[in-house]
């Protein structure tokens, strides 16, 4: 095993530092060492998106990022999405529109959707569907996820 490398990462606004194995995946650092288990692992091949987090404000699949690659970066996970004012509009919209069933894909789906809305605050249904094609859900058939993202966009655009 290679020798440990030190990383300094801002995770959900909190400065974290650690000595990590160079091959440690960001998702395992978040889950196993920082206890941020809201970020999930659903596949081995970067297909399912359950592990989606934000790296410097953009969504990445944290199963395909090494922890050492996050050195010096800002990482936001689902646990960092609620603010002092309560739920992020996407979190609220997922509940309001029944955009989740088993909940396993939900954190990744919300993180991917947040990035989508950052880039395109007022998307069409088609744009939402294509924007989320890197995230798999087996429960909802996507119908209510799409509704939730459109609802969140509407509330943000109005606000």
């Amino acid at each position, binding site marked *: 095993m290679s020798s440990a490398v030190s990383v300094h990462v801002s995770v959900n606004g909190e400065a974290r530092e650690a000595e990590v*194995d160079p*091959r*440690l995946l960001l998702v*395992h650092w978040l*889950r*196993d060492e920082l*206890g*941020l*288990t*809201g*970020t*999930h*692992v*659903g*596949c*081995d*091949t970067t*297909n*399912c998106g*359950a592990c989606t987090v934000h790296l410097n404000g953009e969504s990445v699949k944290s199963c395909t990022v090494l922890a050492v690659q996050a050195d010096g970066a800002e990482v936001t*996970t*689902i*646990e960092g*999405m*609620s603010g002092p004012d309560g*739920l992020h509009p996407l*979190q609220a919209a*997922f*509940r*309001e529109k*029944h955009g*989740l*069933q*088993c*909940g*396993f*894909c*939900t*954190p990744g789906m*919300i993180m991917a959707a947040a990035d989508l809305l950052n880039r395109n605050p007022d998307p069409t*249904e088609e744009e*939402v*569907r*294509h924007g*989320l*094609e*890197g*995230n*798999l*859900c*087996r*429960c*909802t*058939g*996507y*119908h*209510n*996820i*799409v*509704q939730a993202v459109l609802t969140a966009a509407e509330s943000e655009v109005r606000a």
Partner: protein
Amino acid sequence: MTPYVGQAIRRKEDPRMISGRANYTDDISLPGMLHAAIVRSPEAHAAIVSIDKSAAEQRSGVVAVLTGEDMAPDFASGLPMAWDPPGVDINVPDHWPLKRGEVKHVGDPVAVVVAVDRYLAVDAAEDVIVEYDPKPVVVDPEAALEDGAPLVWEQFGTNKTHEWAVGGGDVAAALEAADVVVEQRVPNHRTSGAPIEPRAAIGEPRAESLTLYSTTQIPHIARLLLAGMLDMPEDKLRVIAPDVGGGFGAKLQVYGEEALVLALARRLGRAVKWTESRSEHMTTSHHGRDQIAYVTLGAKRDGTLTGLKVRIVADLGAYMQLLTPFIPELGFPVMGGCYRFDAIDVHFTGVFTNKMCTDAIRGAGRPEATYWIELTMDKLARELDMDPLELRRRNFIPKEEFPFETKLGIVYDSGDYHGSLDRLLENFDIEGFRREQAELREKGIHRGVGFSTWVEVCGLAPSRAVGPQGVGLQAAFWESAMVRVHPSGSATVYTGTSPHGQGLDTSFAQIAADRLGIDPENVDVLHGDTDQGPWGWGTYGSRSLSVGGEAVAKAAEKVQAKAKRICAALLEASPDDIELADGRFQVRGSPDKAKTMAEIAFAAHVPPQELPAEIEPGLEENSFYDPENFVFPFGAHACIVDVDVETGKVQVVRYVAVDDCGPAINPMLIDGQVHGGIVHAIGQALYEQIVYDEDGQLVTGTFVDYALPTAAEVPSFETDRTETPSPVNSLGVKGIGEAGTIAATPAVTAAVIDALQPFGVEWLDMPHTPMRVWNAIHGHGHGNGHGPPSLGEHGMGSAGSGPSSPDEGGAP
């Protein structure tokens, strides 16, 4: 006050799940916990010649490396199979958590490595050197039945697992009396459940007892059967299903890895976790479907159906898991669909192949049965030159005839098939569509519509029908509930079901709240822990609401009856005069004389005055509910697709669904279940297929090769409902979890065939991949698997999980 039942109340489950604070099995970390990785066979069929553990054992941080022989003393018995049909012998081979002597499919576990961290365990597993002596492989179920085929299990002298048959009426006479007889070979290919949460299991030792955390749909059944395997008292094993990230049947199982982590925890005295990789899921979580039906359907010239004869060959894979041989048969109560017949005759043959076992995946037998009856009805309609909907209407069991006993001796509890089709056509203008279709064809756009008028059997199950006294499952299927009202008037409901996305925390709270006179916010629903609440049978088969929900209703009604007696004592009235209205227990006719549940509950625990001696303290009740009959949800779906005839790509452009699952408890949850089920079925119809090559190698071992639909592949859905209450339970409910999966595959296929009518395409096997559709359009292979080989495509001609004949590149 409006009852809570019937309202689209937002889910109680959601706050933790949208904030990343749910608790799935792999999220759990225990002090001193070790991690297991499994060494699996790369061979489809081989003798294990030797296993060299030395390199793995020498790695620092490795705690144990154990083979099947090493762990033989850990298990009193192998993995269980629960079906013992009267008068039928099933060939059931040994099925140990780690294999001894031989491996029978790719992914078969041969050793386990336990280490202090998950990366290290995987590294060490790769250091275990296993020498195999390969043996002949058989992957196609029909080839496996031929003389001289390689045997998966030599001791049985055949690859046939069992035969089973069911029928009623004289089918030979009925087909003889028909003016038109159509025949069709209908493969239904192998699929994966593919919940987004992979399986995981943690064994934890505690003094004399063991705890299993598992991604299971059946914690109580798992405890009973695993305690047997581990030769330990059931009460010393606790099974906890924390939040479970979807199941779809793939977690309705007792898996070797569950037994393994428990045995390891017992051996090593430390907690041991195993988490499945997605490749392991595709390889060794049980598969679904994989059967070939030969359907013969007879009718009079006017369309009146006479007889239905079906021969089903079911590829069961290499071993028997919990329900493996029973799943093809599980569809039998609805073989015949919504239609009247003079005679039905169905025969099943199960087959061993060198593949992973099949077992229940969402729908489990019923999607297959619905698929062949609906598509053969369409074929018959073309043969009769009759509108396929008119053919259906002519043969629907009329509403007035329910409850209706079918030729198979099954009593359909309720139905209004004309009603659901009429409602569908209110939402979908078929005449307008046909005009549009003709116009689009002029422009080279090939649009088609397919219909599915379907019935399913749910409410698993009346124990007398499916248990040892019935079809022979060594189980019963009642469900339990305990309702406990706390001194402050809030309540906890314990259910023996084990939801994993269905929203039962919410719908069961609604059922209890109405009966307790409290807000669902103040009803907590607990499940998935064998140390809490009564024994129960778990969540599968769309059973939870119609069996488990009814048990909740009955337990809550018992609590309500006791609350009335306490209220009557407090108000010095007769219990018969107390009614629950507007959330208060009040004297009938004197609404000013009333108590709230909080007041009654406190009095039940801390009596403010002497209560009648016959009233015991406390306020909690149990119910164990065994249904009298199955329930039979039904509906009518229409799928509209566009086929790009240049590329063969199929796109679903519209989908209209009318479902009838009885009165809605929470309509929001019903729509969610329907959406998800439809996409699961669209996935099977268009994209998903488990493929083994002729050597038994799994070709679709990841989500790169096994294509789940994404949001970009599917449209939004139009859903509507009719509500025909079931007479079987007091809620009138019938189940909705599998409806979309059962209804939608035939609708999609029928739509593709309809779109391709200008090309004379009469039949297409799923999945309707661009290559297969393109070949059908261009006359290569007619889409039925009996044409020339299609280069580069796996599985044509078999149930889709292996080549079927030498001229398709299959095994000799």
